[in-house]
């Protein structure tokens, strides 16, 4: 982990004090995936939140016949792997059991991700880790809200049912933080 990673986390999380910077660099793990390599498998335990920093990732779900339905594509600097974790918080007190990935995420080209363990979300302290838990949650919320806001714009402008479904699929996957609007 280096200054590039620190700068990336500041872009994602906002200003970080030295303790928070040290903590996130200690927690996050850098992984590079080759084209076609799976980062997450649908139905398996999702123990990390992923930040895509380079490359492109495809999200897909299994059809009943076993083939894959493409949901969309992820571009830098977007988060993924967090939606299932937040969705299963039915009691809002269960932060221990792993969430199951709702889709398969696979690299379309050589891709680099920073993996942040979900155990960060279990920390209820008020120190650097606790403050980081808040900031990472806020970033995940921004990401999800960005997806939904793109849906609002899309729904209001489309008139064709088939086009709507395809465009919705694009929107579900092709998102990044508001300041990065790269489209596939």
């Amino acid at each position: 982990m280096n200054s590039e990673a620190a700068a990336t986390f500041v872009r994602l999380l906002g200003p970080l004090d030295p303790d928070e910077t040290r903590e996130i660099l200690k927690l996050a793990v850098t992984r590079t995936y080759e084209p076609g390599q799976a980062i997450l498998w649908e139905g398996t335990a999702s123990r990390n939140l992923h930040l895509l920093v380079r490359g492109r990732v495809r999200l897909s779900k299994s059809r009943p016949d076993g083939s894959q339905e493409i949901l969309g594509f992820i571009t830098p600097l977007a988060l993924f792997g967090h939606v299932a974790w937040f969705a299963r918080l039915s009691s809002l007190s269960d932060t221990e059991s792993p969430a199951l990935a709702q889709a398969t995420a696979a690299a379309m080209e050589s891709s680099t991700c920073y993996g942040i363990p979900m155990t960060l979300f279990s920390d209820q302290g008020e120190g650097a880790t606790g403050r980081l838990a808040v900031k990472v949650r806020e970033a995940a919320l921004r990401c999800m809200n960005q997806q939904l806001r793109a849906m609002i714009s899309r729904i209001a402008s489309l008139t064709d049912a088939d086009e709507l479904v395809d465009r919705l699929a694009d929107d579900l996957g092709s998102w990044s933080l508001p300041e990065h609007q790269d489209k596939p």
Partner: protein
Amino acid sequence: MSLKSADKLSHLFAPARSLSQEHQDIFAQLLVRREYQEGDLLFIAGSVSDVMHFIVRGTVEVFFETSAREVVPLARLGPGETLGEMGVIDDRSRTASARALVDVHTLTLCQQCYRDLAARGDPLAVWLLDVTANTLARRILAMEERVARAKADPSILKNLPLDPRANARRWWEWIGFGRTS
């Protein structure tokens, strides 16, 4: 007006049951009760996001107006749900408007209170974020599931009007963005 000490937060807002009594008591002191009559606007699109609402009683409709002045309902929210939280968390102006469909009671948390909690990593800030994230995440998963099924079987869409604007309610319900009736 603030909550009375006798008011149990968990009785007023069900998701608060996951908080310890100590945290409920602390949180209750930060909240202000607001009441709206049928037809009152809670906020309008473009305005400053100064508070987030926790709905205690009644039904609130979230909507936006198109450039052609068509009102597009987005969701109907009721007791136990939150409203307006993203503007407070993200310091953005309101992206939609909200009005009371019947007499509505909410509890509000001001933006500065949230920021103070978040700045120190308070468990209450974590809980607030999880409540909001849970709603958004379930909505996204519902939409992904529907879109995947519709792509596999376009006949699913045959009962929906071709123009989403023609019957926005039915589209929003299908998309799973929220109850609209």
